[in-house]
């Protein structure tokens, strides 16, 4: 296949060639970045919470005073424990993908000078860490005398389990066990390291901060109340939760069951990422429309060129070119134009990514998106030009002898 005649033909249609190449360049830039954003969104929804999501559910009660807490908890717990299929019930201030209740800024010194970041305190009663199923990778689990009674938002001191991610952030390279952290005057000592425990609201935080959580043991009391963590076998969980809600409604009719937040953890997770899924869906839609419009543009222009060159095609056929030659001519021509577009498009994709990085905190576009985008556009171009090229190949040689 000779490229030179194609190039000289393109030079005659400089404007159209440039236009279609620019369109492909823009499409390439948007395509690469949109694909990357879809990947980002979808991978965000796959965040590992570090807990046994499929066997966990939560029941949330509100609408009573702290003075009534002991009574409400006693009745609610008795009701929850009596539901057949419930393996364990414990008190935990918040659950992964539920409402956050223990967000606080910490320091790694008593004077409060070394700010460690804003982290999440999971304040939980006896048994709650085991119920969650978060894996301990170093140190120890909470012991009976770690659970202190408290007033206010959370205990003033305690032995805590922190996540590996938080440990790496606060004391990179050092052994976190025995280290201390402070929230104003409240003081905590690290006795265990958890492999993973995601924040209740991971989507609201930068990626590297999503696992900055601490488990703080505490005795249930006026301010650790009404937020229950249930464990049941995964298959049985929907039924157990339904029965549990009914049992609580009967046992403590005077309180309000927060039905919006009383769900299986898997369901809460599903809700948390609704937005990301919607955005990913929209991006897929945009990509589809984008490819469609680009393909239509190529079809339109190629059809026009085929029609314009009918006579020349006839002449070529008459002096010995096969149908295959004509077909390949248009395919090669399209390949060349798309290639110009892709080269420009890769540069543009990079520029667009830089813009997105500064304005939307998107990470750098991994380079392998560029060849993928190129392949997609080459494929699209070939597909779009196939129809017009086949029509060109079908032009009979006799056209050469007629005027158009």
């Amino acid at each position, binding site marked *: 296949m000779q490229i030179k005649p194609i190039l000289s033909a393109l030079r005659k249609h400089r*404007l*159209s060639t440039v*236009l*279609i190449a*620019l*369109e492909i360049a*823009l499409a390439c*830039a*948007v395509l690469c970045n*949109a694909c990357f*954003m879809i990947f980002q969104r979808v991978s965000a929804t796959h965040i590992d919470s570090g807990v046994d999501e499929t066997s966990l559910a939560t029941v949330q009660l*509100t*609408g*009573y*005073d*702290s003075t009534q807490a002991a009574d409400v908890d006693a009745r609610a717990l008795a009701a929850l424990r009596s539901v057949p299929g419930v393996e364990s019930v414990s008190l935990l201030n918040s659950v992964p993908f539920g409402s956050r209740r223990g967000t606080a800024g910490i320091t790694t010194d008593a004077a409060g000078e070394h700010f460690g970041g804003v982290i999440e305190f999971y304040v939980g009663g006896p048994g709650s860490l085991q119920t969650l199923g978060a894996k301990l990778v170093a140190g120890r689990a909470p012991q009976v005398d770690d659970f202190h009674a408290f*007033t*206010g*938002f959370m205990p*003033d001191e305690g032995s805590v389990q922190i996540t590996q991610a938080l440990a790496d952030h606060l004391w990179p390279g050092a052994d976190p066990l025995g280290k201390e952290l402070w929230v*104003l*005057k*409240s003081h905590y000592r690290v006795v265990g390291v958890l492999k993973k425990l995601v924040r209740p609201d991971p*989507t*609201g*935080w*930068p990626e590297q901060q999503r696992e900055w959580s601490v488990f703080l043991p505490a005795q249930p009391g006026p*301010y650790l109340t009404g937020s229950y963590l249930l464990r049941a076998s995964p298959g049985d969980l929907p039924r157990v939760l339904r029965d549990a809600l009914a049992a609580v409604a009967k046992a403590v009719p*005077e*309180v*309000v069951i*927060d039905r919006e937040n009383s769900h299986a953890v898997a369901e809460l997770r599903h*809700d948390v990422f*609704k*937005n990301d899924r*919607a*955005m990913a869906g*929209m*991006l897929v839609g*945009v990509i589809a*429309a*984008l490819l*469609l*419009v*680009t393909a*239509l*543009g190529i*079809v*339109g*222009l190629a*059809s*026009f*060129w085929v*029609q*314009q060159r009918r006579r020349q095609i006839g002449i070529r056929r008459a002096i010995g070119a096969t149908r295959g030659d004509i077909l390949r001519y248009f395919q090669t021509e399209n390949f060349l134009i798309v290639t110009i577009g892709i080269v420009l498009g890769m540069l543009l994709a990079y520029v*667009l990514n830089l813009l*997105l990085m500064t*304005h*939307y*905190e998107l990470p750098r576009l991994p380079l392998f998106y560029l060849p993928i985008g190129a392949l997609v556009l080459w494929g699209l171009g070939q597909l779009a030009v196939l129809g017009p090229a086949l029509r060109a190949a079908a032009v009979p040689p006799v056209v050469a002898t007629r005027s158009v």
Partner: protein
Amino acid sequence: MFAYYLDLALRSLKRNRMLTALMVLAIAVGIGASMTTLTVMHLLSGDPLPGRSQHIFYPQVDASPAGYAKGGPLDMLDYRSAVDLWSAHRADRQALIAGSDVKVRAPDAAVPPLMVPMLATTSDFFAMFKVPFRYGSAWTAADAASRARVAVISSDLNDRLFGGADSVGKTLRLKDSDVRIVGVMDAWRPSPLFYDVRAGRFAEGQTSSFYDKPEDVFMPFFSGLEANDGNFWQFTCWGKVATPGHLQDAPCAWVGLWVQLDSAAKVTDYRAFIANYAQQQKLLGRFSSTQTRMSSLIEWLVFNHVVPSDVKLQTWLAFAFLAICLFNMIGLLLAKFLRRSSEIGVRRALGASRGAIFAQCLVEAGMVGLVGGIGGWLLTLLGLWLVRRQPVEYADLAHLDIGMLGLTFALAVAASLIAGFLPALRASRVAPALQLKTL
């Protein structure tokens, strides 16, 4: 002449239906996408109090210890500063606000108790923000002074508890006290819910919650604090809170103050007033810094980046998409016009000027734009329908208003004229002699 060009354009468009359809489709899809996102942008970035927002201000002082508040004073006030500033009555109108969830039981309804958001605020709130009432009215200053247990409820709550009937004078059980309803608000949906906007700069662009509905229960500030004691939300605390939810004496920022200042002089005076207040409190040893800020309503919204970053991203994406559609259309128009080179040659030979050819081509492009605009309008309606099905707080706001409808067509025609410019120029440069020879 214009009518003749319209006729010519129509004929030309009819002659090559496939190419025409491609162009109309391209412009319709591009306009549909960009108008959908632009409409959402327009709704989310609009002025929640048109005509009044320039008089509404959000003063801030900072009672937190040194180094606690980074980048300016905290987003809300501590109780004492808030009440001090409010009771000085230096502004034309002023409203304190504090948020909580309250347990509501309607005595005569068989509805189980429910938790609804409640705003404790002062009586100027309703006049300052022009809150519409369906039944009754706001409580009076006398009600507030006597700490009467009265409330204004939203039309939503009124529908839920009283089936939409006039409930003024009825009693509502809020937490443990009986509260008399004095007013039922009419549908009121400021976008964003500006008076509750705060901490936007820490939200990582996820600000769609700023577009939530107003609270369901409004109570006078001080009697509200009594009635729903123990349930109030803090913005942030810099010390131990003995009783969470009871924050009057806690080291917490949790009260907002909105003021109305009707003239520039009053704005200057008020700035001086809060600066003086901060100075004086620092001398007294209660403040560690004299930093203050007073943003106008719009400045405050901008400072809090109210428009969710996803929406902005979608808008950029849609416009990139429109650009691609335009390139596409330029290419197709070029093909279309140049295909008629011989026809143009004849017209030129018969005396048509370049300008006439140019105008004729642009009329044709504009017509494509107009038809594309109709398609774009339908696609925008479809797009907004999709937005309404999204799980975001502002979903119910997504409707096309008259202005945006007009813009849809204006944008479609403008885009197609821009797209038609280059091809029309090319067509008008066709050399008649060359074309006539090949006929």
